């Protein structure tokens, strides 16, 4: 006997055809193969990490990249930051007891006050500071000041004083103003100090009453050290990342996009229009790139307060689109002859549909690979322009301009070069490896080779 329930329609049965594995779209398949490529995956994570560093970094490390900590200039990472609080700086007129070369008051990183009695037979004096004791070769160090006048026998040294030991010398000048071998030397230990006003200024304490002269205080922390104006390297690298990666990613994105539109239009319309458009692209390709990059950069000009990123971006877009355009045009020309496109056309598909649904998605792979390879090139172009002094305008930092500044101090404070150069290298490498991986993953010929 049948019950009413037996006459209810059956529920949809799922595994009718029995596909045992999930079907994979083009992108899913590519992603699967990319995941299998360890190197490409690592570089993908590296790229994501760099983006995180750029975008989220400034939220986590809230130090203003423009603030100049003049107590800690060109500071290496991880040095002692303890400082003694001293009264505000008062100018000095050379008062103090007489005698051979000696220090008046305390030797601090604020100032070292030197006073001496005129050397016998001197027509004047020159004051030197050294980081080594004066040896037999009479290398006194760096000359700080010169007085061709025996009436002046004091000097206040405030030149970039760092905690540590200095060797001061005062050397007699002869009648012709040339230094002789007659000198006095003095060893001085300099202590790191700061003042209450500066401590408040830099936000170390809320107000001056919290501490008093003679107390000790920790100066600001700079995890990656500081640059030549005492600016925090970490904060500057993050700010620089915004410029370098912006140029590195947005410029290629724009010119690749323009190239796609241009190439697709030319390829699809074909005929005389195609000929004309491609001839124009040939012209642009023939422009010597770096020369025109420089030329355009100055032709667009930078106004006051502008960073100069935009002119660089525009110049790159104007000069670099034709490669993509040619590539996409070639692809479109091929695709136009494909049977499925013709079938779609017969079925009455409109131009928009054909281009957007069938053609462009099929060029996606090559375009993506091109884009990934163009990014490192764009980053290098920015660095190159900074090197020849045509980069972003101060105070905007970029990795390129920071490396260029770092080269000058390569031997004394290598961290100013190493960090930005390392970031450039890492980014360039990551995008190159990612590009390799993408190319392999998107290559249809290798689709089944897993």
């Amino acid at each position, binding site marked *: 006997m049948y019950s009413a329930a037996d006459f209810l329609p059956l529920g949809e049965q799922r595994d009718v055809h029995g596909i045992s594995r999930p079907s994979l779209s083009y992108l899913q398949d590519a992603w699967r193969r990319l995941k299998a490529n360890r190197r490409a995956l690592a570089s993908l994570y590296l790229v994501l990490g760099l983006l995180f560093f750029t975008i989220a970094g400034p939220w986590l490390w809230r130090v203003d990249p423009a603030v100049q900590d003049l107590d800690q200039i060109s500071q290496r990472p991880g040095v002692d930051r303890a400082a003694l609080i001293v009264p505000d700086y008062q100018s000095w007129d050379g008062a103090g007891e007489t005698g051979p070369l000696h220090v008046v008051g305390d030797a601090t990183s604020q100032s070292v006050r030197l006073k001496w009695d005129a050397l016998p037979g001197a027509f004047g004096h020159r004051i030197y500071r050294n980081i080594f004791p004066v040896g037999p070769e009479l290398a006194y160090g760096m000359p700080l000041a010169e007085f061709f006048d025996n009436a002046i026998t004091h000097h206040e040294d405030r030149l970039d004083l760092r905690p540590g030991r200095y060797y001061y010398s005062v050397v007699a000048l002869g009648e012709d103003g040339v230094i002789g071998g007659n000198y006095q030397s003095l060893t001085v230990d300099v202590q790191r100090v700061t003042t209450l006003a500066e401590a408040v200024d830099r936000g170390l304490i809320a107000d001056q009453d919290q501490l008093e002269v003679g107390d000790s205080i920790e100066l600001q922390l700079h995890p990656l050290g500081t640059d030549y104006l005492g600016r925090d390297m970490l904060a500057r690298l993050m700010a620089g990342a915004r410029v370098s990666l912006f140029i590195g990613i947005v410029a290629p994105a724009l010119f690749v996009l323009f190239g796609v539109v241009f190439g697709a239009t030319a390829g699809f319309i074909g005929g005389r229009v195609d000929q004309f458009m491609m001839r124009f692209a*040939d*012209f642009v390709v*023939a*422009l*010597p790139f*770096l*020369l*025109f990059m*420089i*030329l*355009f950069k*100055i*032709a667009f*000009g930078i106004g006051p307060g502008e960073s100069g990123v935009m002119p660089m971006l525009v110049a790159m877009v104007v000069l670099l689109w034709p490669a993509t355009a040619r590539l996409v045009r070639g692809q479109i020309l091929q695709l136009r002859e494909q049977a499925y496109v013709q079938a779609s056309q017969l079925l009455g598909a409109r131009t928009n549909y054909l281009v957007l649904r069938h053609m462009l998605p099929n060029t996606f792979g090559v375009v993506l690979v091109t884009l990934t390879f163009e990014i*490192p090139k764009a980053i*290098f172009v920015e*660095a*190159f322009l900074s*090197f*020849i*002094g*045509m980069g972003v305008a101060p105070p905007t930092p970029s990795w*390129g301009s920071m*490396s*260029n500044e770092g*080269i000058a101090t*390569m*031997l004394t404070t290598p961290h100013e*070069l190493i960090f930005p*150069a390392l970031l*450039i*290298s*890492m980014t*360039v*490498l990551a995008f*190159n490896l990612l590009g390799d991986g993408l190319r392999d993953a998107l290559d249809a010929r290798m689709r089944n080779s897993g």
Partner: protein
Amino acid sequence: MRQGMAWYVCKRLIQGVVTVWFIATATFFAMHNVPGDPLLNDRAMTPAIRANLEARYGLDQPLFNQYLIYLGNLARGDFGISFTQENRQVNDIIREHFPVSATLGILAVLFAAAGGVLWGALTALYRNRMPDYIIMFLVILGISVPSFVVAALSQLGLVTLNNLAGRSLLPVAGWGSVFHMLTPALVLGLSTMAYLTRLMRSSMLEIIDSDFVRTARSKGVPPALIFSRHQLRNAILPVVTVLGPQIAVITTGGFVVELVFAIPGLGRFFVEAVQQLDYTVIMGTTVFYGAFLVLMVIVVDLLYGFIDPRVRLQ
């Protein structure tokens, strides 16, 4: 066939001339659009002095007339007088300094090609073993470190080397002898060398797995012969293909190396001219380089026709 060839070359040359005209025009108008004034100097000029200078350089004419004069001169191969080096013809400047850039560029290409092929072959032989890893690590450095950092570091390295040796083994800067050229050329060719090494390595590996190599091996051909006859020869083809465009890039891209190593090449001249807004030198150099590139492309295309029969003209 011969006539077709001549017609093809002719057509390419005409296209080249039109392209050079386009470059010249683009340069001219970009240049005259640059804010600033090439005549200005540290010491301000009286209107009288200024008028004299403008007349000297034809800047008192309307812009379009200047353009026509410029094109006319260009057609006669005359780039005019430099604004900063007031007594020198731009033609002389190019004639004196381009050979320097070209010499450096050629040597860099030679280094890059030779190094790329040899290292590439070596890494393929030692695939996934220590020499491979070491060379590929160097390749990565060559690809990812900005050229000015490499140049500065290598110069520093030379100084250290000479100081250790106690005498000057290799000059650290300057131009004039073979030894002056070695380091700059190596630095200039470094990124291309790295690129070619990678290319050579992958094309070698592809061929090792190919059918004809397998066939040869099963026939009992000695490995050394397989290596030289089949692998190396076939793997070099793609390297030769990319070399053409690289030559153009390298011969015109020596700015950094020329600046760091104090080499009197045209690239350095261009950078200085831009900083001084030296109209005639900028325009002359750009048009010259543009023409040179166009010519190189034509020559390379023709050569491919000879090297690889698969490439058909047009």
